[in-house]
């Protein structure tokens, strides 16, 4: 079985599982909203400041909500011991990893698709001109988050305190991604929106480096 | 000498950090050696 086909099957399984419950998606969206609202209480930003803090707040909300959402990815396998079954299947570990990454990417993207318009309304941002470019930034940023997050979710699955451990491992590693995504988003929210190519390239570079590392380490990651 | 206490603190800090850590390692090392010796003796007798 090719890697792509195996990954697709894993992806379908993940989606089917989550669709039945749908609690993960709703919880993630609501949690991100809570962060946004809390920030607004705590910092009471004016219109001008919204423009400055908006991108940072948006991505921090995604990062926190995302890292909580990633836990079940492997935790579920752990409690049901289905990971052994997966391992015994004649597919490469990377295919399993890839399937989960794609599933997580879709979940998080759906959450973002709901959150970004809500955010735009709450902070009075007009996103119509920059929609396409914003989606590009969101995709690249989310990819980085999901790639790294899925790998670390596999790492944390075998440890105690995994709900606390995953954000602890993930967030410092994602610091460069956060900076790049925030700067790229900020360049789109500015008075004269112009997508910063350098940051976009940085995001793409980050994704490629970590995807490659995941591929190289996938065998060790999912071993017995 | 201006800012002497900062310079002195920094100087002390560098070696203190390594020294404190080394003390912790060394004490654990000697305790472990004892445990191992004791266990080896027990196993020889048993």
């Amino acid at each position, binding site marked *: 079985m090719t890697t792509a086909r195996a990954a697709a099957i894993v992806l379908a399984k993940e989606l089917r599982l989550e669709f039945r419950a749908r609690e993960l998606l709703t919880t993630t969206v609501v949690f991100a909203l809570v962060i946004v609202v809390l920030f607004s209480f705590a910092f009471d930003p004016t219109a001008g400041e919204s423009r400055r803090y908006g991108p940072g707040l948006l991505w921090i909300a995604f990062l926190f909500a995302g890292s909580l959402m990633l836990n079940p990815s492997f935790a579920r396998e752990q409690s049901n011991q289905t990971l052994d079954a997966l391992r015994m299947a004649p597919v490469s570990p990377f295919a399993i990893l890839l399937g989960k990454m794609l599933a997580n990417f879709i979940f998080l993207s759906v959450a973002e698709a709901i959150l970004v318009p809500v955010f735009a309304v709450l902070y009075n941002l007009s996103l119509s001109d920059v929609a396409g470019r914003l989606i590009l930034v969101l995709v690249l940023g989310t990819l980085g988050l999901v790639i790294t997050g899925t*790998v*670390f979710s596999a790492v944390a699955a075998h440890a105690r305190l995994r709900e606390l451990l995953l954000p602890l491992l993930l967030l410092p590693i994602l*610091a*460069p991604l956060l900076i790049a995504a925030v700067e790229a988003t900020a360049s789109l929210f500015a008075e004269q929106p112009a997508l910063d190519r350098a940051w976009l390239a940085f995001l793409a570079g980050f994704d490629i480096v970590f995807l490659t590392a995941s591929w190289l380490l996938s065998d060790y*990651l999912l071993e017995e | 000498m201006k800012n002497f206490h900062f310079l002195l603190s920094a100087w002390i*800090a*560098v070696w203190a950090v390594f020294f404190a850590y080394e003390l912790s390692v060394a004490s654990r*090392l000697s305790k*472990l050696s004892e445990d191992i010796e004791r266990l080896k003796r027990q*196993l020889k007798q048993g």
Partner: protein
Amino acid sequence: MKGRAAITVLAAALIFFAGYAALFVAPDEATMHEIQRVFYFHLGSWAAMYSALSVAFIANVGWLVTRNPHWDWLGVASVELGVVSCTAGLITGVLWGKPAWGIWWTWDPRLTTCFILWILYVSYLILRGLIEEPQRRATLSAIFGIFAFLDAPLVYASNRLWRGQHPSPVILGGDNSGLDPTMGKVLLITVPAVMVVMILVLVDRYRLEKLRYELEELRLVEEERGSAANSMPIKELS
């Protein structure tokens, strides 16, 4: 334990000479005067940190490829030393910053990078503490360690791009741009001094891990003996 005593004396001597050189041999710096002398140990700490973390990366790869426990012992030892060196670097930096700039801290590229690095490798140690099974602990922390090491240059690059305007705090000889030759010579004493101390402590920490492993092996033997003794065949009794 003669070898050990000799090494301790050597380390003490190095520390003494380094201090002497930094205080009396090094020339006076124009703007900051005395406090600038922290630089010699500040730089030494970072050199020690980068060395330790590079060794950690090699050890992480080594474990994944060979599964020889020596690599795991080296991995945890070098990460701990990396964290210790980083701590020394951060403390000396803060104690230099307050008198020199009037502020304890600022979020500029180098400082932010180093702080994140500190957190990253502390997380490595926390991760290890939370996994019981030794093989798995070694493998998973090795994987995390590799990601952390890949991340380090990215953190630095992103910070540099982001805050290109803000002046870096260690322009003074940081990249050996126009460093006074005497200062350079003093560095040649102080940097190795910190590195040698780091390496000596690293060796001890490695030995500690090795002994832990031996103790575990012995305990396993003891358990086996214990259970074998408890399951004597019944016919022996009759």
